[in-house]
């Protein structure tokens, strides 16, 4: 846990120095409860997203053709495999929770008025939930044979 020590003034008697921290004992971290669980979630999901999100990004954007390859047939072929459907659903779920908790942390830092902060966070939660339901329904129920093959 980082310890903040009091600001010493300069020997010349100038302006006080910025606070110094003792970095040798690690960074600050929530002491317990919900915030500590979210702290842990951000790090565990971050490790999983290193594979899921960075992997997805590199696979979709770097090979020749990049995202220009993506059309209905591309997704139909890709989601023909339960492996990619599972990958995409896990990516959807973890990235939404990770990202929305990130937005919540930012509002806690910058939005001081409790009402505004509450309203902003509720917008994020509702939006996240709606997108989670929408994305989950599509990734689970999508069936390319619902449409006649394009000639």
């Amino acid at each position: 846990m980082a310890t903040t020590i009091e600001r010493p003034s300069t020997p010349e008697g100038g302006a006080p120095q910025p606070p110094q921290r003792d970095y040798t004992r690690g960074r600050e971290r929530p002491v317990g409860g919900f915030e500590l669980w979210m702290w842990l979630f951000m790090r565990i999901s971050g490790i999983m997203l290193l594979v899921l999100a960075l992997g997805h990004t590199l696979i979709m954007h770097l090979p020749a053709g990049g995202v220009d390859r993506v059309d209905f047939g591309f997704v139909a072929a890709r989601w023909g495999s339960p492996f990619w459907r599972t990958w995409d659903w896990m990516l959807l779920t973890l990235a939404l929770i990770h990202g929305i908790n990130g937005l919540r942390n930012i509002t806690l830092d910058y939005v001081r008025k409790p009402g505004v902060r509450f309203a902003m966070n509720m917008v994020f939660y509702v939006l996240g939930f709606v997108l989670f339901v929408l994305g989950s329904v599509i990734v689970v129920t999508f069936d390319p044979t619902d449409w006649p093959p394009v000639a």
Partner: protein
Amino acid sequence: MATRLRKKQKDDFGSPYLGHEGQWSWIFHRITGVAVILFLFAHVVDTAVIGWGPEAYDRVTEAYKNPAVHVLELGLVLAVLFHSINGMKITLIDFFPSLAGHIKVVGRTSAAIFLVSAIAVTAIMGKQILDLL
């Protein structure tokens, strides 16, 4: 330590981030994180359009196929790359707190890994964008 801080006094108060290198990775982590979650909101919706059939979905994916969007796309990939690498740095330091005592080495290694991979990604994607022109 005290001598060093006196020398850096001007920097310390000239920058909103107190002159510590880690503050720059901190602010970039926030900016890239917000950029990626905002894109994710749009991306879930554009992918969901596939549930309305090939005609609707192909109209959406056509919108991504132009050079200006490809430049934004490069920015997105670089944002994901930075957030991933810097996030792993944070996680390593938090799970192995003794690394915090070597923050300068850890931070610069992380920045170097990002720079090298960012150059590689920019070269690959930049060539593809130029080939489209």
